[in-house]
């Protein structure tokens, strides 16, 4: 524990979310809120989501859970049992925020709007696939279905492979996108509450969040009803553009993201390539004109330029190309896998990766850390993900005053764990 405070210090969140809200809850925990994960006595579904420690499933072995539940506390309560919902409502009276992902029309334990009416100081955020209203609100959903219907997937895919389908980027991105909106919405409602003293209900449709996360597809659709062409490793566009991903000598890929815009940077890049004895055509005077380097216009100068660049990249190793191009001011990059990121000294120097103690396993685990560096209220990764029901007694007995016998009876009845 550090003694610095978080931006949401003193804010308590009851997090009743399933995977749709796991990232939202993690963001709030990282900002310093006391996030209490309310999970069913059998354990949250995230505990059954891999990958697993040593590939062996188990409620305390999910690396997905380790990542998304870190810094939260766990209270296991069955919200579909009368005694469970009663305890939940008592907890809600002491909380600032309830985050829930129950789809309307799918047997949710309570109505979030009624909850917000019942407790006017409470911020209740409903994060659901399509929102509280509309013809699709009850649709059966998965993260991939969300990305398909929501727009992001429609822009991702291949021009280089005939008849390839649109591609869904992996790793729960519908929940990532919506998680940021949920966290921002909670913070904005809390900020407003500091002045008004009042909470409210927020209806967040993940589908609508994704609709704002498709970049230029949006204006082309809103203004011109013009769909874009999917292209590998670069922007979908109204017309085809030249490729950006080129293989290196050591079997990796460099993404060249277009060309330097300034003449100084272009000349520095040419000097770097020619210092390796390649790129003779890059001295062509026509290429001094930035417009003659502009991709996407099928220009002969660009064809010649890219041929030289591809040849240079194919003859060198990725790290050398990356360092040289960046030093010249070109925003080129290596296409890395997540494991390759850990070796980069820059992220180590910034302290991005953090070591967290997992005492049950008698080991320290390296996690990706803060998405932002706040100077006065640093991101807190918090303790390792909670064990199932680890804080049930602490909160139900310690705060709500149940005796251990009463809790024991609830556990025996399967209402708590």
């Amino acid at each position, binding site marked *: 524990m550090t003694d610095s405070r978080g931006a949401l210090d003193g804010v308590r969140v009851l997090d009743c979310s399933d995977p749709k809200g796991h990232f939202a809850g993690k963001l709030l925990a990282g900002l310093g809120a006391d996030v209490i994960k309310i999970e069913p006595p059998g354990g949250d579904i995230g505990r059954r989501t891999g990958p697993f420690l040593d590939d062996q499933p188990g409620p305390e072995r999910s690396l997905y859970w380790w990542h998304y539940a870190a810094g939260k506390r766990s209270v296991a309560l069955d919200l579909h049992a009368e005694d469970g919902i009663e305890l939940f409502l008592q907890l809600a009276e002491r909380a600032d925020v309830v985050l829930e992902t129950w789809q309307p029309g799918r047997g949710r334990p309570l109505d979030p709007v009624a909850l917000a009416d019942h407790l006017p100081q409470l911020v209740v955020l409903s994060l659901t696939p399509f929102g509280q209203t509309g013809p699709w609100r009850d649709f059966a959903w998965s993260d991939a279905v969300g990305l398909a*219907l*929501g727009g992001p997937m429609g822009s991702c895919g291949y021009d280089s492979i005939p008849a390839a389908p649109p591609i869904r*980027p992996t790793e729960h991105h519908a929940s990532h996108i919506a998680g940021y909106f949920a966290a921002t919405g909670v913070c904005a409602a809390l900020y407003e509450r500091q002045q008004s003293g009042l909470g409210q209900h927020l209806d967040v449709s993940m589908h*609508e969040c994704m609709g704002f996360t498709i970049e230029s*597809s949006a204006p082309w659709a809103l203004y011109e009803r013009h769909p874009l062409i999917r292209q590998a490793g670069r922007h979908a566009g109204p017309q085809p553009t030249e490729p950006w991903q080129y293989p290196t000598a050591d079997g990796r890929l460099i993404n060249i993201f277009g060309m330097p815009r300034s003449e100084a940077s272009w000349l520095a890049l040419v000097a770097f390539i020619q210092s390796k004895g390649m790129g003779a055509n890059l001295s062509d005077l026509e290429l001094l004109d930035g417009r003659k380097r502009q991709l996407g216009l099928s220009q002969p100068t660009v064809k010649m330029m890219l041929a030289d660049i591809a040849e240079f990249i194919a003859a060198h190793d990725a790290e050398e190309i990356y360092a040289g191009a960046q030093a010249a001011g070109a925003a080129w990059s290596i*296409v890395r896998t997540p494991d390759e990121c850990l070796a980069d000294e*820059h992220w180590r*120097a910034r302290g991005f990766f953090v070591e967290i103690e997992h005492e049950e396993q008698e080991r320290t685990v390296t996690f990706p850390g803060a998405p932002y*560096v706040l100077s006065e209220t640093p991101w807190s990764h918090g303790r390792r993900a909670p064990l199932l029901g680890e804080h049930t007694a602490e909160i139900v007995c310690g705060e709500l005053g149940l005796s251990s016998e009463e809790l024991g009876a609830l556990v025996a009845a399967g209402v708590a764990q």
Partner: protein
Amino acid sequence: MTEPEPAAQPPLAGVRVVDFTWIVAGPTCTRLLGDLGAEVIRVENEQTLDSIRFGRPHPGGFDPPNSSAMFNWLDRSKRSITVNARHPDGLDLIKRLIRVSDVVVENYSSRVFESWGLSYDEQRDENPQIIYTSLSGFGHSGPQRDYSTWGPTAQALSGLTAMSGLPDAPEPAGWGYSYLDHMAGFTAAAAIVAALHHRRETGQGQWIDLSQVETGMALTGPATLDFTVNGRRYRDTGNPPGNRAVWPQAVPHNTYPTAGHDNWIMISCTSDAEWEAFCAVSDHPHWRSDARFATLPSRLRHQDELDELIGAWTAGQDGRALMRRLQDADVPSGVVQNGVDLVVHDPQMQAREWTVAREHPVIGEHLTDGLQLRFSRTPAHRDRPGPVLGEANSYVFGELLRLSGERIAELTANGALG
């Protein structure tokens, strides 16, 4: 009938943001803050305009700086002033504006603000409670702080590009747009509103230093842990997996072709119950009793065969009718929609009025898109179109900073304004 309550202010009413952002990442952040009710003042300069002001499409004809649909989409809910930060008088005006503001946001390369004399310390001299947000590729510290990114650069470096694609393809598909421009912008917005909350509690401002690549690496948790805990590198198991599931495991989980050109439906059965429901509603109920597909482990082993069978069944069917049929049976499924589908063919978006018509002084009537955060008591808004260049000059320099008309003319003549 009771009297209607006076319309509530949006949640960030009274917050003033000095917005030095450009391209996509920073403007994504400040659009969200503007929608939430903050007064966002874009600081622009006629000599170095945001290239998005030239970005296509230009629905009424190419007439920059005020004709771009891309700009109007991304920069709505903001005001615009024109001032030159590299002119001493211009810098002085910017500092005076910072004195009466709450938040400063910029997404330049990491040394630009320092070179203007607007480091965090210098901003704090003007306003000790300022919340300064710098959004750059690599952050403002570390050995590579001078490296630069665009969205695709950051996506490649963070691992996200490699995690999207067909197995065995010569290259990943990656993201067909600057996903991390949006996500870095959202990260900044969440951090800024949290910092405002902290400041209202304590009076303390702060510096939020964002690295776009870090916002991407923060989205790779399980894959990173599979390496740091299990020692498994991402490509060891044949990744990327196309449209098949990684975790949670699910089969079938893929895109399948439907009638027409380049139309696809995503079907993902995340449990045996959903698989059984899928078989029952398909025209092939015997799939359920086929030993190859009886359990998740067997379906995983026979995924190629199953995908082929399902694809042969979906091909030629109307995608939306098929989605309705599957959804009626509670099978997670959805057609792959592009932007045009969201605007034109999506009954859910229409029912919730995701698009509404608004007026722009140059572009005219146009559609603007959704409010993602629907507050019951303090609604966000989307009524202010992208600002015409310099439209707020007299408001900001005259009303807020109380310069006389004469002084404004002088500063315009000497190049500080404009």
